[in-house]
């Protein structure tokens, strides 16, 4: 079993972060010491995605449903990226609605900010965070959960990919057994789990979640998972590959905990705890590319890696 992700290849194009040209192997963390731009960048975004015709293109968003000005501004960037880079899928890593979940909240915290994407037939597939009411959200048509609290799906794509959507706050024996069976039965090249609580994170507020890691990591390793998307900590972090697996924390879609990345953990490959952000990713064959984009329209992390085999 090779561990190709350990040879994480980073494109240098997007290494311009606040005027600093960083080496390919440098840890990139945008922290409080580096103030964000006051105005979004104008013009085309400097995306570094291959944008191949038959690739699977998707976005990753988490911890977003606040209804705040910042959420709407990030949603505007998602629309802008979509115009330039037409992804048709958004995976949601939980905390989809904060506070009350009355019908008007679904409109204000989801349908209104992402209306341009919904109108463009972009599909959102939700996982449940600790702020989410399962009964309300699993039955919400636009979250595509089909009435289930955990599920898997194969996106409409020529690429061999299956997503596994878990409810990490309630890892019952039934759910874990289901997950293992789904992994075992899947013949997809890319098996991509996503859920809310991060097995690895440098968050001072939450940080790595031991119970999620203990319950799930053995299965990731056994069934050749290459990449895992999570949220919960309110920033962006690309964790250095752990046992050959790349972990992303993308809890920066609306909530933000400024200065919360603990740089002493040694886990961080790149991070941004200074501005709201989301990710786009692209799979073509055995390769995955990614860009992380801030509310200000800055591409602050990018790279690619090869799946484990």
């Amino acid at each position, binding site marked *: 079993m090779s561990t190709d992700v350990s040879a994480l290849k980073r494109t240098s194009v997007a290494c311009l972060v606040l005027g600093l040209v960083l080496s390919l192997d440098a840890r990139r963390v945008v922290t409080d010491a580096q103030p964000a731009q006051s105005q979004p960048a104008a013009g085309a975004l400097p995306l570094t995605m291959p944008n191949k015709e038959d690739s699977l293109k998707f976005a990753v968003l988490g911890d977003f449903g606040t209804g705040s000005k910042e959420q709407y501004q990030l949603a505007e960037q998602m629309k802008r990226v979509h115009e330039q880079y037409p992804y048709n899928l958004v995976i949601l890593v939980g905390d989809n609605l904060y506070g009350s979940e009355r019908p008007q909240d679904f409109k204000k915290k989801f349908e209104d900010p992402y209306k341009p994407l919904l109108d463009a037939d972009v599909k959102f597939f939700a996982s449940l965070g600790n702020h989410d009411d399962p009964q309300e959200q699993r039955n919400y048509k636009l979250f595509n959960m089909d009435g289930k609290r955990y599920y898997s799906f194969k996106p409409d794509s020529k690429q061999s990919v299956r997503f596994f959507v878990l409810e990490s706050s309630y890892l019952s024996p039934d759910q874990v057994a289901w997950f293992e069976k789904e992994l075992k039965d899947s013949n997809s090249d890319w098996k991509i789990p996503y859920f809310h*609580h991060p097995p690895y994170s440098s968050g001072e507020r939450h940080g790595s979640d031991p*119970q999620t890691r203990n319950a799930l990591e053995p299965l990731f390793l056994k069934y050749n998972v290459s990449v895992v998307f999570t949220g919960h900590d309110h920033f962006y972090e690309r964790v250095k590959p752990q046992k050959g697996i790349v972990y992303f924390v993308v809890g920066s879609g609306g909530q933000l905990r400024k200065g919360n990345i603990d740089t002493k953990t040694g886990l961080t490959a790149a991070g941004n705890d200074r501005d709201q952000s989301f990710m786009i990713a692209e799979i073509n064959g055995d390769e995955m590319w990614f860009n992380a984009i801030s509310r200000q329209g800055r591409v602050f992390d990018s790279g690619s890696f090869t799946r484990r085999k």
Partner: protein
Amino acid sequence: MASRGRLIVIVTALLCASIACTRSSAPADDSKAAVPGTGSSTPPSQPVNEDAKALAGFLERVNQYVTLHQKLENTLPKLSKESTPQQVDTHQRALTKLIQDARQDAKQGDIFTPEAQAVVKKLVTKIFSGPDGAGLRASVMDENPGVPNMKVNSRYPDEIPVSTIPPQLLEGLPKLPEEMEYRFVGNDLILMDTHAHIIADFVPDTFTK
């Protein structure tokens, strides 16, 4: 009575695996035979321990609650995959009211009797005093401020996030019907009706904060 006997056997198997640990060193073949529901590993003459009895009784009371829940929910329009947030919300709040009205006299300890509470506390203590205990406790208490003056049959507060539940605890506690789940509110373990968003019962002060 037959179903009660089966429940006791199931809970005995669960407890042997999770609390008493008397079979932890048993050969693999023997532990396979202890799969809940088979009953083949429990000789008829084996005494059923008091913890198993307590949890069997707890499960019976949960099932009685769920029977009531289902009877009341069946009086409401059914939700579909096409339901709007308005329909889901209306359904949930109507069910909340029906259950609250039907259980006006419900009080703490009705489902988690003192005997069941003691077993739950024993299990939580065992898990939280283990090698991963500190991390698990921190995870449970993450964004979990508790609710002052929590009452049985009240709506789970909309503004309070739900806690995580350690997988080890879910392995040790009886499996609940789809309508119900365990959560922590502060250090109280609650039995939550997820369809109605109601606290059906709780075990206070399950562990030291």
